[in-house]
């Protein structure tokens, strides 16, 4: 159960070790499996992707809920799907 103020995550992917453009390829394929309104959480460690994935997701029409560095090597990005593919 999501606690108050916490985002409910519908799907999580761990793409640590993946580099561009496969970080985006894998994120895009994952979000295609969701319905509008659902949230995808991406765990990644490729610095360039931490910037490019939120931009790409905005371009696809989705909302970036969170893009945070959680430790010296990893980032967590949360995307809410807003439009059908």
């Amino acid at each position: 159960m999501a606690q108050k103020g916490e985002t409910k995550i519908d799907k999580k992917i761990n793409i640590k070790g993946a580099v561009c453009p496969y970080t985006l390829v894998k994120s895009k394929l994952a979000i295609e499996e969701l319905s509008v309104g659902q949230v995808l959480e991406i765990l990644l460690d490729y610095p360039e992707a931490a910037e490019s994935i939120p931009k790409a997701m905005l371009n696809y029409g989705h909302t970036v809920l969170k893009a945070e560095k959680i430790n010296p090597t990893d980032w967590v990005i949360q995307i809410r799907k807003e439009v059908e593919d």
Partner: protein
Amino acid sequence: MEFNEEQLQRYSRHIILPEVGGKGQKKIFESKVFIAGAGGLGCPVGYYLTAAGVGTIALMDNDAVELSNLQRQIAHSVKTLGINKADSAKKTFEALNPDVNVIPVKERLTNKNILELIKDYDVVVDGTDNFPTRYLINDACVMLKKPLVSGAILRFEGQVTTILPGDGPCYRCLFESPPPPGLVPSCQEAGVLGVLPGVIGALQATEVLKLILGKGKPLKGELLIYDALRTNFRKVKIPKNPDCPICGENPTIKELIDYTQEYCAI
């Protein structure tokens, strides 16, 4: 289906396009395209559709590769001189992308075999070089309501149009019947710039992918004319002819016509 690691890499530039994505790439995998002619147009059309991952490509040609083809027919080579063009192109396409099932059809299209040959395909591409076959393909596609992407080339000029039977004009709405034999010269008589079929074939392949994906606006009801010498593209509207003998309100052509006899007599 799930993408394997190789497919993720191979199709990555498609998957990240919003208009394609994983879903569109799967549509491409599941599609079946029939290409009539493995010559100047059929080579680039088949080559790009193979690269795109079209699941099944039938490639129809009954001629053998000749040295004079290699100036423009990019799927053939000195290594395949003398062998059937569909077989030659199959080797090239399979080397590019083993995901694709390339079916060589070593026949000549006739009014007897065409319906059976194309009936299981989603889209037909006309890359043939003569009027009897062009009209035969048009009529068969109208009868079966198959989308047809038609291309033609001569000297420095090429044409493309997409025919969606029941939803726009057909080739006969534009030119009701074939020109008299000998009036329009062939590439053999008049020449063709080798790169021209590359441009026109790439446009045809683009139209095919748009139809498969259901994205964009198909080139229907319009003839796109490319003038290579002036680097000019122009579109000419083709109105649907209500009296068209094949797709009009009261069609007079009810059986496929074989025009080859009168042509071959010349």
